[in-house]
């Protein structure tokens, strides 16, 4: 991992007009009318990382569930390019070319008893190079696995191995490889570096940043402030299911964010 060098973060600005992803007044209530998400509104532009900072349990999990289609929201709208995504099923959301990196990699992200090569096509298994009509093309699945294992330096590199045999960091690489290989327009990443060592964390950061520079829109949810501060172009602060402030990267620092996250007041 020593060959990962420090790549200076480029100064390319986010595209000014092109809003790729927009959430309008999104709310989610429990059946007992207890609010989990309150009137969330934000938008992400092309070539932009929007960081979502917040103490764990401020609604990140619920937001991920709503955006990925696992759970319908109570009110509000979600737009991707000019298509409305509100309360679509996970199949329909994934059909739009949205990559989602879940925080619970062993529960939501991977099927641990699947072979490595099988996990590397999960969600794309029904699409064209891997599947023709209904029969799987094992040769293409194998070459895809070889390519991604090399590109993302997944260890051990045997595509026939059960995914459960991999370390947490390598499992995370499997998810990243799979999600980013479909060339998505939007990446929703929740705690992408949880449980990784320093090298793994650096790897993920560089990856997300190069994706940003390639023109993707990225929603980064993380409870690690350093990560949010280092990567984001703008930072939204989530507290109690509400966005209480959206700061630009220049005006945000660790004290200010911490104060907002915990007390809800600006310094």
């Amino acid at each position, binding site marked *: 991992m020593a060959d990962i060098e420090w790549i200076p973060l480029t100064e390319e600005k986010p595209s000014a007009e092109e809003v790729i992803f927009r959430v309008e007044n999104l709310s989610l209530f429990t059946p007992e009318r207890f609010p989990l998400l309150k009137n969330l509104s934000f938008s992400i532009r092309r070539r932009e990382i929007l960081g979502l900072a917040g103490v764990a349990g401020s609604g990140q999990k619920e937001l991920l569930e709503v955006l990925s289609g696992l759970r319908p929201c109570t009110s509000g709208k979600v737009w991707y390019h000019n298509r409305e995504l509100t309360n679509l099923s996970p*199949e329909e959301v994934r059909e739009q070319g949205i990559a989602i990196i879940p925080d619970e990699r062993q529960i939501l992200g991977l099927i641990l*008893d699947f072979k490595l090569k099988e996990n590397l096509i999960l969600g794309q298994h029904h699409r064209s190079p891997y599947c023709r009509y209904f029969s*799987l093309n094992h040769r293409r699945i194998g070459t895809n696995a070889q390519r991604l294992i090399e590109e993302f330096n997944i260890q*051990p590199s045997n595509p026939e191995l059960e995914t459960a045999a991999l370390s947490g960091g390598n499992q995370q690489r499997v998810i990243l490889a799979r999600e980013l290989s479909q060339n998505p327009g939007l990446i929703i990443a929740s705690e992408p570096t949880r449980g990784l060592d320093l090298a793994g964390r650096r790897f993920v950061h560089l990856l997300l940043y190069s994706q940003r520079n390639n023109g993707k829109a990225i929603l980064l949810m993380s409870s690690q402030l350093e990560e949010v501060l280092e990567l984001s172009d703008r930072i939204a602060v989530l507290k109690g299911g509400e966005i209480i402030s959206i700061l630009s990267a220049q005006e945000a620092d660790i004290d200010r964010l911490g104060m907002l996250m915990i007390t809800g007041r600006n310094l």
Partner: protein
Amino acid sequence: MLRQPKFYTKAHGLLTPLLAICFALLVAIIIIGLLGKNPFTFLTVFFQGAFGNTSNLINTLSKTIPLVFTGLSVGLGFRAGLFNIGSEGQLYMGGIGAAYIGALSFSFPRFLHLPLALIIGFALGALWGVIPGWLKAKKGVHEVITTIMMNYVAIHFTTYLVNGPLNAGVFTRKTKDILPTAWLGTLWRSGTAELSYGILIALGVALSIYWFLFYTKFGYEVRAVGLNPLAARFAGVGVNKNIVLTLGICGGLAGLGGAIEVTGLHHTFYAQFSPGYGYDGIAVALLAKNHPVGIILTALLFASLRSADRWLQIRAGIPKDIVLIIQALVILFIASEALIRGRIIPHLLKKKKTLLKTEG
């Protein structure tokens, strides 16, 4: 770095079933010894009764056919994380469907009549699987409850049909004989023992289920849903669609098994003809670890136990219930795999470690 040779992982899957069979036979031998019989005559008589002469061999193979189908029916369900306990009822529905079509006295040509009977058998069985599947997908009703209840509906419904509308004549408990154009035909005959072409269909279907599971996107989704339904749903696999589809195919497989029993063996539908093939299918699937090719072998094993039981009783004086004891023991040992792997092996390893620590 973890690099296991391929044959090791493959052999590892075979290890538990083989150990379970060995342990079950061992315990059975002890029980026979306690009964005061010679345990070694048990083994020889068992092999004679199951494979010893052609008519015994044909009987064994003939009993294998329905067990392959019910085993596949249960095993495919397990692959999708579903407990299809309803194979028995699905078998009955398939049987009655085939018996009804087979007895229709239009002058069907053979190449039309037989496939139609089998297809209707498959379809009725599939219907008996789709209903619990739909209830689970839409209403969240657990399939164990519904499939078990559907068994009783099917058994009593077919018994009613046999005694009522489809009755062959007073004082019989069967439907009208099916016409020879719907007979499956005999592959191997010896004396009164007959083996129908159903055995070839069973092998073909088992291999197709293998292909379905590992070489099609549907099989990929079925396995994904069975291993981690949350991740499957998150990645865009329609879980509910897969539940209905899988239970439908499960039901269809058992229904086809019933149709083949009727068209290949009985040539009529006897009320309550199955000696519990559907429930034995659970054991067949468990022992094979839900692998379609393994199911062929375990179906053969259970069929040989079933067909040898009378010989054991007559030739060796061993109560034929020993067969049920062996079956139960096999399941018990298979079920304790998790215990041995999860508790006993780690416990032993821990002990070794602490020993090493105190020594060091």
